[in-house]
Structures are given as C-alpha cells and as structure tokens.
C-alpha cells in the first residue's frame, strides 16, 4: 500500500532481455516480495520494533498478555491518537510541524459538548466540531504560511493561546454529557462490537483512507514535493502556500475527530481535553519512520508508531514493572527507533 519509499539501486535491475525493459520498468525488483519490502522499509522497521517490544513484554509476564482486557483498553484510547498522528505525518512531510493540535482537540470537542448539552443531535455536534477544527487549522496554517512564521514557534503559541481561551471562558469547569450514552451517534462511534471498541474500526478506516491520500492522490504527491523542494514545486506551478495551509487544515479535522471521540469515551468534556496527547503523538510520528527533514514519510508507519507508543505504558505495567519505568521505556523506544530508521533509510540531497 505504501508506495515508493526506497527502491534499491544497489542491486541493478535484472530484466531477462533488453527489449522488454519498458515493460519490466514497473519495479526495480524482480520479485514482488522484495519490492514490497524495499518500498515499505520504514513502516516494516517500525513493525519490527513493535513486535520485538511486545515479545519482551510477553516473555516478562505471559499471563497478563493473554487477557483481552489489556488490549481492549489500548484499543479504546489508541484511535484518539491515530486521528492526529496520521495528519501530522502529512505536516512533517510538508516540512512543517504543528504543536497546536492538543488545543484544537480541546476547542473542537468543546464545541461538540456545547451542541450536545444544548440538546441537539450529537451528529450535528460532530459536524460542528469538524468545522471548528477546519477553521482553527486554517487559522493556524494561514498564520504560519501567510504570516511567514516558524511553524514550530507559531503553533506552540497557538496551542497556549487557544487553550488559554478555553480556560478563561470555562474557568476550569468540565461538562458532563450523560445523555450521550443513549444516542445513535454513540452506538455508531463509541460502542463495542463483539467486545472490540468500535472506535478502532473508524480509526483504521481513517488510516487506510489517509494512506491512499498520501501515496495515491495528488494531495499527497504535492505535499511530498513541497516538503522536498519548495522552490522547485513553485517553479512547476504548484501553489506551495495553499498546499501548506491544507495540511494544517487536515490536522484541524483530525484533531476535531480525535477530541470528539475522547469526549464520547468519557461522557465528559474537560477543559484540558487533548493536552496529554502532545508528546506521545509527536513521538509516534517519528517512531513511525517519518524523518524530520520533510519530503518523505509513511502513514502506515506512523499508525504502527502510535500503536507502539500506546502499548509502552500498558506493557511496562503489565510486565510487572512499576509505573516509574514508563518514562524510561518511552525514551528507550524512541531512541532505538530513531537509530533504526537512520540505519534503514538513506537521506538524499
């Protein structure tokens, strides 16, 4: 699915005869499996990290890892992270960063909570939240792109600014949405099917759709080119600024969905909603194999990165270690993944 990460040229193309070159130009590798591995080395590397990590946890305490509850709890919270990790892969590929998504999550889910509390249908609330997310994404993106600001600092500022607004208006008070449990929207987006939290299906659909957008759509192609060489993209007639604003809007949409899901899980909106996601989500993007310098990345890898990061905390505790080990393992996984990716993918200039 994830295409063209790294065709290998160390082993020259081995076509059987010269005159069929055109036909066999499809792929640098003579075997589909080899081609698949080469095309997806970043995400496969991330998968490797995840499998090794889980194996270590399971060996440490086999019994806990056979209980479904452990996975069920991860599958409830993981989707929230996935909805922001994936758009962030686009942002980082585009050569930017967005640190304002936690506040966007809080802000959009606040709009959702307000609409639901006012007695409207939760579907309407979701629509309002997504529109809010888009507008905030557009605001943040425009500030960075048209204001010519550093996205690192400007989005950090916007994160504080928006969160501050939420705090000022709500004065720290949360909102309980008990009526949500009986709504059809809750059944569709937040119930369980055969004991599996239904959010994960929506999250998987989002990841698949985004991966197609990234690898097989004009949007993804232009995001990569802009992140790779913005001058060149401009010379070739791509509206570089527009593409950049679009990725921030995409994060806004993802953050709005993520925030809404987290409210539906808890039946409560807190003014701090989304705050805890900043660092784990950022870590997931880079653990997933998207490099910091822009131009390339992997959506599927980012998703696997999010799974990895989600399992660290659960895994460490379940393996019988005290909670004090969580941060240490977080750091260890991040550093090991980065070293692995550095070895796994070369950088071209």
């Amino acid at each position, binding site marked *: 699915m994830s295409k063209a990460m790294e065709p290998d*040229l160390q082993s020259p193309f081995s076509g059987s005869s010269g005159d069929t070159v055109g036909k066999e130009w499809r792929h640098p590798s003579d075997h589909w499996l080899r081609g698949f591995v080469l095309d997806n080395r970043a995400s496969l590397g991330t998968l490797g990290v995840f499998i090794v990590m889980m194996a270590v946890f399971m060996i440490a305490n086999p019994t806990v890892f056979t209980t479904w509850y452990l996975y069920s709890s991860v599958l409830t919270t993981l989707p929230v992270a996935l909805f922001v990790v994936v758009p962030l892969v686009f942002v980082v590929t585009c050569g930017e960063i967005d640190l304002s998504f936690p506040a966007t999550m809080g802000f959009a889910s606040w709009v959702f909570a307000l609409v639901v509390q006012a007695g409207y249908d939760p579907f309407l609330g979701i629509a309002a939240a997504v529109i809010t997310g888009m507008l905030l994404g557009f605001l943040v993106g425009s500030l960075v792109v048209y204001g010519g600001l550093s996205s690192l600092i400007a989005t950090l500022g916007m994160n504080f600014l928006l969160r501050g607004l939420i705090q000022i208006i709500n004065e720290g008070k949360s909102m309980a949405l008990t009526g949500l449990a009986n709504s059809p929207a809750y059944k569709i987006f937040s119930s369980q099917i055969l004991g599996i939290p239904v959010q994960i299906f929506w999250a998987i659909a989002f990841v698949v759709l985004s991966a197609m957008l990234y690898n097989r759509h*004009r*949007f993804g192609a232009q995001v990569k*080119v802009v992140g790779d060489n913005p001058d060149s993209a401009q010379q070739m*007639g791509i509206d570089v600024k527009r593409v950049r604003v679009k990725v921030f809007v995409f994060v806004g949409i993802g953050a709005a969905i993520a925030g809404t899901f987290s409210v539906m899980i808890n039946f409560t909106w807190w003014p701090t909603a989304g705050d805890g996601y900043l660092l784990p989500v950022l870590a997931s993007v880079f653990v997933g194999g998207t490099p910091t310098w822009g131009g390339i990345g992997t959506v599927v890898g980012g998703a696997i990165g999010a799974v990895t990061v989600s399992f660290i905390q659960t895994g460490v505790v379940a393996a019988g270690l005290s909670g004090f080990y969580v941060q240490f393992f977080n750091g260890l996984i991040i550093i090991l993944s980065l070293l692995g990716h550095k070895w796994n993918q070369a950088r071209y200039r």
Partner: protein
Amino acid sequence: MAERIIELRDIKKSYGQVYALGGVNLSVDRGEVVGLIGDNGAGKSTLIKILSGVVRPTSGDILVRGKPVTGWSAARSRDAGIETVFQDRALAVQQTIVRNIFMGRELTGFMGFLKVEKEIQEASRLMREIGFTSKVFTPHSIVGQLSGGERQGVAIARAIYKQAELIILDEPTTALSLTETAKVFHFVRQVRASGRSILFIGHNIHHVFDIADRFVVLDRGKVALTTDRSEVKSAEDLINFMEDVAHPGGLPGLHDGGETEQRAR
C-alpha cells in the same frame, strides 16, 4: 514570417533600488533556437524567471502568440506552452523519477487520485524518447540516486512531456560530461526539427554558438546585441563583442577589439 511564440516588451525588474533588468525586448519565433548569453549579473536568471512566471516583472508587457497576457504566473507560463529546465534542475531529489516528471500536473482520475500506471507508462516513454534510458534506473528510482547527467535527463523529460512550444534551457551543459553534453545538443536539434523553439542560456559561448540560430547578448540588465548566426563569423567574434561591452575602453592586450562593434544594432 514564423509565428512569434513569446515576446517581451520593455521588461523592467527592480529589487528595491537595484535594477536587474532595465527594459529588455526579447522574442522567440517558432522553430528557432535562441542563444542567450551574458556575464554573471547580466540579468539572465531574472529574465528566465520572468519567462517561466516565477518572478513578475516590475513593468513591461508579455505577449504570447501576439496577445498580451495578464496575471502572469508559473502555472500560466506552463499553460502557454513554455517549459523551463532550470539550472539547478528544480528536482525533488527524495522523490521518484515519475513524481518529478509529473510535478505540478499529476495525472489524476477519480476524485484526484493518481493514475499510477499511466504515469509510469508515460514516464518510460519520455525517458526513452530523449535517450536517457538505463537498466540501472527505473521510473521508480529516487532522483537523489542519479548522476548529474541523468538528473538533467529527468528535467528535460519533464519539459517535453506537454509538447511544449518553447523550452528554456538554463545552463543545460554546466557540469555535464562530454557525452552528456552531446546528448543535450542532440535533444536541442531534435526539438528544433520538430518545429518547436528553444531558448538556450549558457556561460560557455562555444556551446551556445554551436547550437543557436540567433544570439542575444545581455549586459547589465539590457540587451546589448541581437544578431543572426549568419552575421557572426565565429565564437571569438561574440566573445570579443562581449568584452567590448563589458569594458568599453578595452582591456589592454586581451583582443584586437573594434571589429564586432559595427555589427551591433
């Protein structure tokens, strides 16, 4: 008379107080190769950027096939059939050859999704057409893995994809080997034979002299000379002329001087 592909009239471009171009007139007709030469800082790069729409002129008119255009931009320039191979080749080096060839005009079908197979076919065809084929690289190869000449090939393949009317080659032979330079020359002749035009920009006057039908010498933001090939005897004539323009008093002992100035018009 051949159709006029593009005409620039009294183009001026200033960056703050500094004039990069001070009223340039330039035109390219169908099927001709125009050689644009000039020293560093003569304004060649600015002129190319204006032609390709990356930079807007401060004042002056741009006429495409005789009609004045407004709202000139990079996309407009490409629509008008002008393709530019920039000196730095404007490639995204972490992307595949296919993605570079279709940069900014991806072949899309349903809801903006890419027609991947079609793009690969077209890319293969283009690469074969200009003779930049190899068993070592494929349309999926990352441009960063290619040599300088191969990268030039990708840039040229991108330029000819849309049957461009005018192809601007900015220093296309710089940093290329002899065989690669020969390939570029072969390509230029091929394009001319097919009735399209080329604006060939070069430092190396011998290269430009070998290939162009008409020469335009740019000096400090102005056109110092426009002359047909038939009026110039040798590349040395052009070099002498450029030295005269650059140093009106003449540099002692560098050349005999004078002779070519009469041809200036």
